[in-house]
C-alpha cells in the first residue's frame, strides 16, 4: 500500500477523502450549528462556575461518534483549591 507519495509525506487522496468525510458527517448529522458550540461552551462554564471554580480556558467541548449515534463530550477541569495554610501553629 505504501507508495512514493507516502514516503514524501503526501497523503494519498483516499485517506484525505476519508478524513474530510469524517468531519463533514459529524456536522451533517448534528443539529448543532458549528457556531453554536462556542455559545454552548460559554453558557456551560457560566452555570458550572456558580457551583464550583473552573478555568474557562481549559474547558473542552466536542462532538464524537459512536456508530451512528452522536455524543457531546465536555471535559471540564476544576481549579485546584488553594488550601489556606492552617494558622494553629
Amino acid at each position, binding site marked *: 500500500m505504501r507508495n512514493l507519495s507516502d514516503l514524501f509525506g503526501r497523503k494519498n487522496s483516499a485517506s484525505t*477523502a476519508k478524513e474530510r*468525510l469524517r468531519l463533514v458527517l459529524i456536522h451533517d448529522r448534528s443539529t448543532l450549528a458549528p457556531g453554536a458550540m462556542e455559545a454552548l461552551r460559554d453558557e456551560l462554564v457560566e452555570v458550572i462556575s456558580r457551583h464550583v471554580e473552573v478555568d474557562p480556558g481549559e474547558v473542552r467541548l466536542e462532538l464524537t461518534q459512536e456508530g451512528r449515534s452522536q455524543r457531546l463530550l465536555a471535559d471540564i477541569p476544576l481549579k485546584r483549591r488553594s488550601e489556606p495554610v492552617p494558622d494553629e501553629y
Partner: protein
Amino acid sequence: MSARVITITSGKGGVGKTTATANLSAALADLGYKVVCIDADIGLRNLDVVLGLENRIVYDLVDVVEGRCKLRQAMIRDKRLEELYLIPAAQTRDKNAISPKDMQRVCDELRPDFDFIIIDSPAGIERGFKNAIAPADEVIIVTNPEVSAVRDADRIIGLVEAEQKGPAKLIVNRLNDELIERGDMLAVADVLELLAVDLIGIIPEDQAVLVSTNRGAPIALEPKSRTGQAFRDVAKRLSGQEVAYAETNGTGGLFGRLSKLIRTGGS
C-alpha cells in the same frame, strides 16, 4: 405469500440505483422468486429501458393510481423471466402525481401475489423519495466510493432511520481495484466505517454494465460476468443465504479489515 417490499435509494443521482434495481429484480426472479419492480421515478422513467421493456408499455403507475387501468394491466412481464414484472413510471407527469398513501395501496394490492416488490426510488430527499420508501419493509442504499455519494448516503440513512424504516443496508457500487490499490479510492471498509451501516453488496466498476444496459439485458443474467455474480450474491443474501464476499481484488488489507468490520456488525 406476502411480499417483502424493498426500496432502493441513494440520495445522490447517478450512483446506480436503477441498474441495481433491474439486476436485483432479475437475479431474484432467476432464483425462482416472484418479483415485481416498480419505477417510482415519475417523470424520469428509466427502469423500463434498463430492463429492455420500453416497447411494451401501455399503462403506467400513475394510470393505476388515477384509476385509468387495473393494476394487472400496468404490469409488464419480462421477456426472459416468467416471474419478473415491471410497473413503469409515468413519463409525462411529476412526483406530485402520486402520494405515499398511493404507493402503500399499490404495494398492498401486490403483496399477496409476489415474494418481492422492488422499488426504484428517484434521487433526492423530497416527495419522490418519500413516495418510494412509504411502503418499504426494508431499504437498500446504493453509494459509490466517492465523497459526494457517501455524504448523501449518510443523509439518506438518517432519513430512513427517522422514518423508522431502518436499519438500511448498503451496496457499494463501482469499486475500482486499481484505484483502491493506489490509495486513490475509498475502500469498502472506509465507507462502512464512515456510514456505520451493514453491508449487503460490493459491485465492481465494470464497462460490461454499460454494454448490458445498451442492450437492455441485465448483467445479472450473464453467468460468466463477475459483476453479474456480485448482483446474484446480493439477491442470495436478500433471500437469507450467507454468501461470502468475493476476493475480487487488491489492497491486501482490504478484505481482512472488511471481514473484521462485518464480524463486529459494522457498527
